[in-house]
């Protein structure tokens, strides 16, 4: 792995484009900037074409002999299937409104990371082969021949896009780079070009049930362990049921929540909440993954992984599905899930909260409810006894995850929960141009949260971290809250690098901290074993502060 430059080095970003035109500049695969090529093993697991051993810095990528045909046919096929692609290729005026909206451009200064130019990498091929004016006028209208260096460029820049849609928000015509990135990655996959980090997760999830490749028994072990942790800290036993037929609710959450800190604390929060409510729910060892790296690779692979959720709900005969905190999982659930299934799943019922009786009308067809919607509803109806003082050691800011922000629009639910589980005056918003629909992505989403491209990740996450630093300096914020498991996997690394004073936390973890049980033991620590402020031995706590 390449040596990671210091923050001061990385923050010296130059936004001056090179003297040479962009068509003449070929991508330079510098260590730290790219994700490794996928191991052929993963491709075989999921029947992906052209599995072979190759590596990104290689001169020869060993493309199939008819790769050009495959790409062009693939492009034509996608133009016929996606109106979005046709329109986005045709109507861009290159006004540049998107340019300084991309976190990768802001972090790297590479002009090809301006969404407009990243799109142009694909558009130039479309123009050359699918429009008459492009054939006739060539580079004057931005058309160019398709050769291997173009493919390399696609590979480089389509994997420095996290599908976060910030550009699409600012585009006067709604041109969505995410859509083009996804379809571009599909085309790359069709000639056997995949990144290892994403494909390993996909293959594992496809084969075993979760991105981390946990077997059913290992899955159970991990969650049981977290339940024991709950008991140790709170004195409350939070037994978990798995694959239980006839449960009312199937609970699906991304593997990040049971695999690694700090996601695990969020999962402990879920378990406490469900125990508190005596919720009739079950985990599934088959639909063990809410996240969907498949969708980062292709629409079809997304569907292949996502199908498991409804299939399992059908098998277990549950009434509806509750989904954990996750960004891209919810974008997939919201935008694709029922469409992929083809109809509203008839074996499920319209979701109704068993505690408050609230009908989740907005999920009438989808039959899946977001944990933040569920929790906010509980709090609103006064069903939770919460002690915000238990979160007094936390000064929080909230990171709207790109996918739930611009692919769903879930802003108020988590904020409502935050305001109820934190003491007053402990919640601070980051600057308005960096939150809500204008939020910056963590910089490592969409399957690129590998180690080998750490430099690029830190650059991509710079705008987010920069806003965190602002609230940290101004208000002493020490926690960054989010409702996304990928955020919880990637933001700690990012903040460790840029703002090491700030930790990352899920929102349900805060709920778990604040939840007061009748028969609990006296709590002196939060779910992370950190001393609470103003509880237990007063002096000790004071000193700690």
């Amino acid at each position, binding site marked *: 792995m390449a040596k990671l430059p210091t923050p001061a080095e990385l923050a010296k970003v130059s936004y001056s484009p090179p003297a040479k035109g962009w068509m003449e500049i070929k991508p330079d695969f510098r260590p730290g900037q790219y994700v490794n090529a996928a191991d052929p093993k993963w491709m075989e697991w999921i029947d992906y074409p052209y599995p072979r051993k190759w590596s990104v810095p290689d001169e020869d990528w060993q493309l199939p002999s008819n790769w050009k045909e495959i790409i062009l046919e693939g492009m034509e096929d996608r133009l016929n299937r996606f109106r979005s692609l046709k329109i986005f290729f*045709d109507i861009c005026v290159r006004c540049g409104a998107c340019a300084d909206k991309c976190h990768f451009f*802001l972090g790297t200064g590479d002009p090809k990371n301006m969404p407009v130019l990243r799109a142009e990498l694909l558009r130039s091929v479309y123009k050359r082969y699918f429009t008459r004016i492009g054939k006739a006028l060539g580079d004057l209208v931005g058309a160019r021949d398709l050769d291997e260096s173009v493919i390399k460029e696609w590979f480089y820049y389509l994997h420095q896009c996290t599908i976060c849609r910030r550009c699409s928000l600012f585009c006067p015509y*709604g041109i969505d780079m995410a859509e083009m990135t996804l379809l571009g990655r599909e085309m790359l996959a069709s000639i056997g070009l995949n990144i290892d980090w994403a494909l390993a997760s996909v293959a594992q999830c496809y084969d075993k049930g979760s991105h981390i490749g946990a077997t059913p028994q290992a899955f159970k072990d991990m969650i049981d362990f977290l339940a024991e942790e709950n008991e140790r800290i709170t004195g409350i036993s939070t037994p978990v049921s798995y694959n239980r037929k006839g449960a009312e609710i199937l609970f699906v959450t991304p593997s990040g929540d049971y695999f690694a800190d700090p996601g695990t604390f969020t999962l402990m929060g879920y378990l406490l909440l469900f125990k508190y409510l005596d919720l009739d729910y079950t985990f599934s060892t088959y639909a063990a993954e809410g996240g969907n790296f498949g969708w980062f690779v292709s629409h079809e692979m997304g569907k292949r992984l996502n199908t498991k959720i409804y299939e399992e709900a059908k098998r277990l005969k549950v009434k509806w599905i509750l989904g954990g905190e996750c960004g891209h999982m919810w974008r997939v659930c919201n935008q694709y899930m029922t469409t992929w299934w083809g109809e509203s799943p008839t074996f499920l019922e319209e979701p109704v909260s068993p505690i408050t009786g609230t009908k989740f009308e907005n999920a009438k067809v989808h039959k899946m409810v977001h944990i933040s919607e569920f929790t906010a509803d509980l709090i609103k109806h006064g069903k939770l006894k919460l002690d915000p003082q238990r979160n007094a050691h936390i000064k929080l800011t909230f990171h709207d995850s790109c996918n739930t922000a611009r692919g769903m629009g*879930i802003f108020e639910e988590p904020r409502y929960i935050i305001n109820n589980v934190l003491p007053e005056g402990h919640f601070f918003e980051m600057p308005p141009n960096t939150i809500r629909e204008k939020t910056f992505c963590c910089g490592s989403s969409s399957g690129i949260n590998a180690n080998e491209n750490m430099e690029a990740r830190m650059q991509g996450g710079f705008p987010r971290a920069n806003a965190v630093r602002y609230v940290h300096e101004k208000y002493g914020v020490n926690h960054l809250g989010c409702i996304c498991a990928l955020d919880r996997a990637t933001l700690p690394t990012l903040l460790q690098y840029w703002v090491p004073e700030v930790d990352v936390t899920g929102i349900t973890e805060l709920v778990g901290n604040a939840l007061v049980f009748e028969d609990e033991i006296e709590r002196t620590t939060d779910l992370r074993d950190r001393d609470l402020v103003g509880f237990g031995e007063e002096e000790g706590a004071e000193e700690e502060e």
Partner: protein
Amino acid sequence: MDFFKRNILAALIAVLGLIAVAYVGVKGNLQLLFGVVIPYMALLIFFEGIIYRVIKWARSPVPFRIPTTAGQQESLPWLKRTLADKLDNPSTFPFTLGRMALEVLAFRSLFRNTRSELIEAPQRPEGAKLVHWSYKWLWLGAIAFHYAFLVIVIRHLRFFTEPVPHFISLLGEVDGFVQFFIPTVYVSGVVLVLAGLYLLGRRITNPNLRYISLASDYFPLFLIIGIGTTGILMRYVYRVDIQAVKQLALGLVTLHPVVPAGIGAIFYVHLFLVCVLLAYFPFSKLLHAPGLFMSPTRNMTSNNRKVLHVNPWNYPVKFHTYMELEDRYREAMYEAGLPLEIEPETMETEGEEE
């Protein structure tokens, strides 16, 4: 020659060439060609081209409902949703219409525009910080440009109608409210050229924008600035017989084309540039106008979880079934105490498997 110079010069030369073509043509008495034949051809290409393109777009389905959600979703009834939320993340059709209307008429998304800058921050360990601020100049330039164009087009209807409807004369009076110069200066013409120059200027002076700009970006700008300038020159400097111009225009729209004598060459240059703009429209980025109406991230209602969206080419995919998983891990799952479809003891009786 570098990329930028090549592209901007190509566009500039193209427009100057077009001007020369029209001028020489008229001096060579090709008034019929430039006054009647080319305008009809340009109109045909414009209409046919746009309809062809829109239908071409429509021949591809919209497989997924992918609106860019820019406001609070509709979820719990008591959660506050402002009017802005409802318009930026519309969950019902009327609000989707509202969102589209705002996009089309007020350039909503561009209004959101921000500018980001990296500035030195010695007090921070990394020594720099990014600041983002609201940046409305592009929006202002764009909206001035487009509305000026609209007003000009409507104003020009006075040449194509007889009697002239009241609202057109009224618009002319409003547009000329400054009452400066004779004939009265129309604000719209000046605004169009100035806004066009602004849009051109930012393309040339902003290094990143210059980097992405193609000849096909400069060309329509030069063309429209050319149209505006010839129009202004014709009205205020090189006068032409306006009555004859109207005769020609009316001849075109009544399908009784005539070429009255004595219209100055500048008129034909103006008209020719307009014709080129019309004919160029369906093959270029100017398609952003019809395209916006069909942009799936803007024109779709964000009600995915409430109303089913059907993908016409949805097809079954292979997935790993639960039974495959259980078959592989049955014993370990049994040991872990996980419920099973088939208990391990019965594994020998293969026939009973599903």
